[in-house]
Structure formats: C-alpha cells, structure tokens
C-alpha cells in the first residue's frame, strides 16, 4: 500500500474546532490545563474569548460545561480520556447525561498509544464507561478526515457526545472530498465473504492492511469501520454476521465493555455467530514507544491476520 500522510486525531480535533469557530458562534472550548496537549490551543489562539481554561479540575470543568449548555452554548470539554471519562465519570453521568445537556466531550490521549506516560495515562476503559450512560453518543474516529467530520457532526447533534481522539499520528486513509460522516452509521471499507473484521479508531487502518494480506492467502475479509460505538449500526453488524458467519473485532481499548462488547450485544441477540475480540486483554499497559506497545498488545494488522486465520480454522 502506498505510504499515507499521518496525523494524530487530537490535532484534527483542535484544528476542526478552530475551523468551525466562525461558522458556529455558540461553540466554546474548555480545557483543564491541557490545551497544549489536547491541541485546542489553536482554537484558543483564534478565539481567546471563547476558550475557558478551568485549571486542573476536570470534575468542575464538566459542571461548567453543563451550566454553559443550559444557556444554549455548545461547549467542548477537553481533557485526556483518563480524566474526562474516568475521573469525571460521575459528573458526566449526573450533570450532563441525566439532564441530557448539549455538552461535547473531546477526550484525547485515549488508549495504549499514549505510550511513554504509561499505564496511569493509558485509558482503555473510556468507551465502556461512556456507553453505559443513557443518551450518550460515543464516537471513536479512525483518521484525520473522520475526526474532523465527527466534530462538526457532534456540534449539529442535540445531546451529549463523547469523542475519543489519539495522541499517535495515524494514516489518513479517508478521502476528505468524498467522505460522508453520519453518527450511528458504520462504513464498509472492504467487501468479503469468509469473515468480517469490525474495527474502530486506529485499528481500522490495521484491519484494511490485514484484509489485503489475507486476500493474498485466499481469504475474503470484509472490513467495517464502526466510528460510532453508541448508537451502533445494528443493521450493518447483523448483515455481516449473517453473510460471513464470523466476526473479529479490533479496538485500542479493553475487550471488556468496548466495541467488541457492543458488537457481541447485537450479534448474540439478533444473529449469534462467533465473535473474537482483539483489544487490551484485561491488563494495564506500561511505558514505551506507542508503536512498540501496539505490537506488544496485539493491536496491529499482523495479529488481526493471525486471529482471523485461527478463528477460521476453528469455524
């Protein structure tokens, strides 16, 4: 495959906010002393009066966002996934989710690809936490194009949205001229008949690479990108279960409560087929370069290929 330009989706987040600031005058951005890292600094520079730094106080930041939303403003509360979804969970649940306020949560540095900062900052639990909140939309973009589109879709969506962004630069494989993003609609990237790989976030491109490698070995692999984990595209998942009879999910998140669980929830009810989950296997991460960690934890195309072959052999 040709080398693609790479970009971290956290950069896309900050740039999208800055790009959309003129179009949406109600857009406000909040940070908890991490504007440099969440990349909202570019918005702050362009719209200093619409950026609010709450200091190192994520719980209060979520409450401030809730209060702003009650008055019709559209706040993006930004922090690392660990603090946005983890530390502030109960405030998100009770002050944003329960009253269904129009707050957007921009959570960067999600997953193990945080790298050197280590386990304390590698949030592999945020999707699980956020998708338990009634009415919360959960989005995990795969690349720059999708991340930018997700930000605007979140602005246009009435209700709370959690968007997950990464620190690591990832290949931009979507065509920004033609790509259409719709909350709740998955995207079939490769057709196939033997097995379906359903992936999210940075694992989507790994799944595309894996499908190519499997094709060379005569295995027809369908690849689906699920950017919206909640509400999940049930129709597309059920169709894949029916037509390929085997699903492998791939996510940079714990195998407990994330995409794999969401897909299993649909499949077990509507069309029971085997679902094999690739993700972080109920362990904490550790420090190291992101690329090495992804390989070590099996979050790579090679492991998708191996997992698919093993699952097909057992089919």
């Amino acid at each position, binding site marked *: 495959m040709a080398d693609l330009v790479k970009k971290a989706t956290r950069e896309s987040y900050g740039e999208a906010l800055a790009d959309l600031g003129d179009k949406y005058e109600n857009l406000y951005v909040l940070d908890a002393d991490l504007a440099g890292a969440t990349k909202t600094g570019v918005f702050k520079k362009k719209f200093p009066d619409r950026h609010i730094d709450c200091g190192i106080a994520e719980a209060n930041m979520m409450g401030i966002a809730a209060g702003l939303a009650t008055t019709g403003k559209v706040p993006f509360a930004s922090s690392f996934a660990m603090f946005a979804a983890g530390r502030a969970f109960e405030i998100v649940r009770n002050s944003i989710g*329960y009253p269904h306020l129009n707050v957007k949560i921009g959570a960067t540095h999600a997953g193990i690809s945080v790298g050197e900062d280590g386990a304390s900052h590698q949030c592999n639990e945020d999707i699980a936490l956020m998708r338990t909140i009634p009415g919360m939309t959960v989005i995990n973009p795969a690349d720059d194009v999708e991340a930018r589109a997700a930000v605007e879709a979140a602005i246009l969506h009435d209700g709370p949205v959690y968007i997950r962004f990464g620190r690591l630069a990832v290949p931009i494989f979507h065509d920004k001229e033609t790509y259409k993003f719709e909350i709740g609609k998955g995207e079939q990237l490769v057709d196939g008949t033997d097995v379906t790989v359903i992936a999210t976030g940075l694992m989507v491109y790994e799944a595309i690479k894996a499908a190519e490698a499997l094709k060379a070995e005569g295995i027809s692999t369908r690849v689906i990108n699920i950017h919206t984990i909640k509400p999940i595209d049930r129709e597309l998942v059920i169709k894949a279960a029916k037509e390929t009879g085997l699903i492998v999910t791939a996510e940079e998140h714990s195998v407990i409560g994330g995409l794999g669980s969401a897909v299993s929830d649909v499949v077990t009810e509507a069309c029971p087929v085997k679902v094999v989950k690739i993700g972080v296997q109920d362990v904490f991460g550790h420090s190291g370069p992101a690329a090495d960690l992804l390989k070590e934890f099996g979050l790579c195309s090679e492991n998708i290929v191996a997992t698919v072959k093993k699952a097909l052999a057992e089919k």
Partner: protein
Amino acid sequence: MDELLKKQLQITACKVRMGIIEGVYNAKSGHPGGSLSIADTLTYLYFNKMHVYPENPKLPDRDRFVLSKGHTAPALYSVLAHRGFFPVDELKTLRHIGARLQGHPDMKHIPGVDMSTGSLGQGISAACGMALSAKLSGENYKVYAILGDGEIEEGQVWEAAMFAAHNKLDNLLAIVDNNGLQIDGKISDVCSPYPIDEKFKAFGWHVITMDAHDFDSIEKAFNEAETVVNQPCVIIQKSTKGKGVSFMENQVSWHGTAPNAEQYAQAMSELKAQLAELEG
C-alpha cells in the same frame, strides 16, 4: 424590612413548610430537616428577589437557581408550587411512580427547575457555568445556588470556588446552609469544614453571614451581596435544621426520615397554628 412585606414572606414561608411536610409525608421518604432550614431563604428568593416567570419558566433572561444540596428538593418544589410553576396539590405526588417530582431536582420535567442535582458538590459547578455564560454573552441575569454545610466537604465545591473567584463571577451568589448537621452527626464531629467563612475568603470570595430565619437579616445580607463587584459572593446562613416543626428542630434523625401519620398531624398542626398567628 417593610413590616407588611415581612409578614407576607413569613406567611408564605409557613405555607412552603406545610408543602414540604405534605410532600415528604406522602412520599413516605425524603429529607425534611434540610428542607425546612432553607424554607425562609427560598421564599425570599422566589417571592422577593429573583426574576422568574412561572408562565414561561425557561425565558432566557430569567434569574437561575441551582439547589446544589439537591436532596432538599421538597423545599424547592414547595416554593415553586406556591410561586405558581405547578399546582400546590402536585406536591403530594413527590417521589411517586409516574410523577414529575423526582426524589432529587430534575430539570427535564419539572417547571422552574434550572438544573438537575442530587449528587453533592455538582450543582455549584453548573451554577458557575451559568454565571460564566452570562458574562460571556453580556447578559444580566443572576445565578443563585444553595449548598449544604456538609456538602462543602466535597472537593468539587472548592474547584468551583476557585473557578468562580478566578473568573470574577459577581453575578453568582452562593448560600451555604449552615445548620450544623449531616447524616452521620454534627459537621464538626464528622469531618469539620469549619471555619467556612475563612475558607471562602481564602478562595477569593466576599463572605456575608445571616440568620436564615429572620427576614430582616436575610434582606440585609442580600442587599450587601448586590454591592459586591468583581468577586463571587457567599452568604453563610446560620439555620436550624427542621425549623418550624418542634420535634424536628436540631435533630439529625430528621435529615432523611418521613413523618408517620401521627407525626405528620402534629407537624401540620404546629404549622397551622403558626400560620393562624401570622394571619391573625
């Protein structure tokens, strides 16, 4: 304070207290003690201070109120009902299945409720967000929030306190209901938040104290609060938990217990006698 106005407010506050007892009794659960301790302040706010519109509760230029100590919802519901946001008779549906009046304030369904609260320490942050919003857009509404003295043991309160002072939210007025009791006992015994005044001063707030059951003191405190600029203001109100019902006063056991039929009858008879005396 004008004597006629004072008498009217006292009469209304007594009716608000009757509504609290009515609600908690019919719910067979709820929090009467801390509801009764804020009845006079809420009456003053809704009948003499805040710009609210019972016919059109969500008008953007209204003043906002956040009950950060959300468990005392019976007091908020009673004052809202008496102010005309919904029928007083609806107070009897408190905590019932199918009722709008949830155990803790629910902004999605109850007219006049500006923020859903109940988990302590969170309401004050939302109130700060509302006040900040007015500053950002150049609007003139004010935001009022009542916190419990036990509630301020929550760390989030002090995150919010720091934020409000940093952002010079002089359109925010917080009231700490200092009745001295929390579920497990006296606040000074459980995990003392004292000195409350010095803490808020250290966080950059203007601090006022008042007697929560004396409308002259209440008016004086609110008038002083209006003169404060460039910093948020907190009124620490010295109150009596269970105020107005003799056997509930200063009893920690009435924090979260509903009266039985006999206790209900006695409470209502005491409040009716107070009302008759005020109206006499």
